[in-house]
């Protein structure tokens, strides 16, 4: 877990950075509701200066997948 990824999720979801892991997902994190999902997309794009496709957005069901998507987009420290 990189600090940048943990920071984005912790800020948007309102949970501490230590609580963010690769397994963090809407299933185990009640704060990750549909509103948070929408906010997360923009926050991730802002932080890593990327544009996510709808396919990528739909695929991002946990933090690990988000990190994989970011790495395929050339983000080194995801």
């Amino acid at each position, binding site marked *: 877990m990189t600090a940048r990824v943990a920071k984005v999720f912790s800020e948007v979801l309102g949970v501490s950075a230590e609580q963010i892991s690769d397994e963090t997902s809407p299933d185990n994190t009640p704060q990750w509701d*549909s509103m948070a*999902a929408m*906010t997360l*997309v923009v926050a991730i794009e802002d932080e890593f200066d990327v544009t996510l496709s709808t396919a990528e*957005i739909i695929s991002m069901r946990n933090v690990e997948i988000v990190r994989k998507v970011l790495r395929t987009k050339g983000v080194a420290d995801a």
Partner: protein
Amino acid sequence: MSEPMAPAYAGDVAGRAAAIEAKKAWRDHVSGAAGRAPALRVGLAASFTADTLVPFIGAALLTADTVAEFKVGPYNQLFQTCLDPQASFGGPCDVIVLLWRVEDLMLDEITGFLSGDAEALSRARAKLASLAAAIRQLRGGFPGMVVVGVPPYPTGGAASLLSLDNAGGLGGFHRTLAGEFVDEIGRIEGVSVVDLDAVQRQAGFAASFDPRKWYLYRQPFSDAFLHTAGRQLGRIIMASRRAAKKCVVLDADNTLWGGIVGEDGIDGIQIGDEFPGSAYRDFHKLLLSWRARGVLLAVASKNNEADVWEVFDRHSGMVLRREHLSAWQINWQPKAEGIPLIARALNIGTDSLVFIDDNPMEVAYMRDALPEVTSILLPSEPADIVSTLQALTLFDQLEVTDEDRKRADMMRAERDREVLGAQINHTDFLQALDLRIDLFNARTEDLGRITQLINKTNQFNLTTIRRTLDEVRELAGSSDFRLYGLRVTDKFGEYGLTGVIIARISTDRRRWTLDTLLLSCRVLGRGVETALIGALADDARAVGAVEFAASFIPTAKNALSASFLPDQGFSRVGEQEWHLDLSEAPAIPPHIERAVAEGVTGRGFAAEAFETRLSAVAGQ
């Protein structure tokens, strides 16, 4: 094959950074807001998912020191919300915001209209009328503020840049509906309007729509659009809660025109059709548009009053005229003293005033002396003046009444012309300024600026003797003269080389005759004139002089300096001649410190050292 362009909804760099900043401000507030009771409860309902607008409205209100709490009603249930807002928002609200898009409410009608269905437009109009009726019902039963949105241009589907301008296509459909909606709302008293159509234009049509979020979340807008919309809503909401400023007090030189009338003359200032005069003229038009809404206009200028009126009354380029002004203070007193007099003359509080000046020092002084006055620094780029000041929200008010429109004229008619004796206690203010003067023997590198001052200073100039650079250089090298420059600094910064004294020394070295004494008007007052004579007297005594001789030669422009010699203790010995015994010379006032410049003793220095330095520089 070339890379596809980045989608417009990604936004531009600056806009994106500002949006991120706003969202962060709101997030920080929410995470730390536990103890802060909201001053305002805002209910937000829209024909689309509006949750993402909340941080932007919230952040905009925070910048106006207002903490709001938001309740977002269920998506696309505007009619239900109007009929029962309590139920939609789960509790009472102070402000209800209703936003809608044509394509959310009237998609079938749009499709029909574009495929030639002659009835489609009237069906859309019927829907519009029922929406207006629902809003009317909400207004009737809800005591708070109601803000409704003008729908933006439809996006996605049939919308394209070509269709934007198509009177018979989507462009015409949207224009008709949006226009009729504004008319309908205008007939309901007490409903405010946020023009999302204009917001979309401001953010850019293509940059406003984020199709990904629309398909995934029924949330059609980019952050660029939401940020602009949030700021606009914040502005509208604040306008209903904060008393608008009542009067704008304007500097004259380099604010209402380019240049300095006292120095450049009425023919030398810039105001009229040609840039930069045109930028100042457009500023006048903006001021008159404020005046038409009830904002009073006043002038606070350090000037000869007659010079300023000559511009107002005679200059053909002036759009703003004397009769537009409700009050003025045109003199050489500190503006922090004049402005309360303006407020008293207009019978308003100083906290209702906005002060606009091009001089950072004046603005800093005003913020220090009268923090309740909103002091604004005019942009130094003339082309930016109007666009910057148009963005001011200070005069925002939601409804402009006939009385507002007439106020400026009424105040003008009743303007109280009595001389107001009230003066501010200025001693503490002066002490806090950390005023320093540096009266120094001029060096070669100063001679250019000194010559410039000698040839252009009109107002504070005892003799108005003009000299060429060669003459000044020769005089600087002569042991029969002392050539001084003056710098003034205070805690707000440095005023630069702003004064010149040329003293001719008698053969017996006992008398210094003030051939030239001039000061830039920027540094007048606050005891600087006395400090100048005090410092000069120190230097003169140190080399054995016992008296000053001076003359005051009146011109059309230098009335300002007429009282200088008697004020400093000189006595009159002839038609224009004055005399001061150095044992009676004033001391430097206690609130002013004399700086000792590097390599200069502060008590004068040997003429030969000065000449050596001069020739060394000249030989380079």
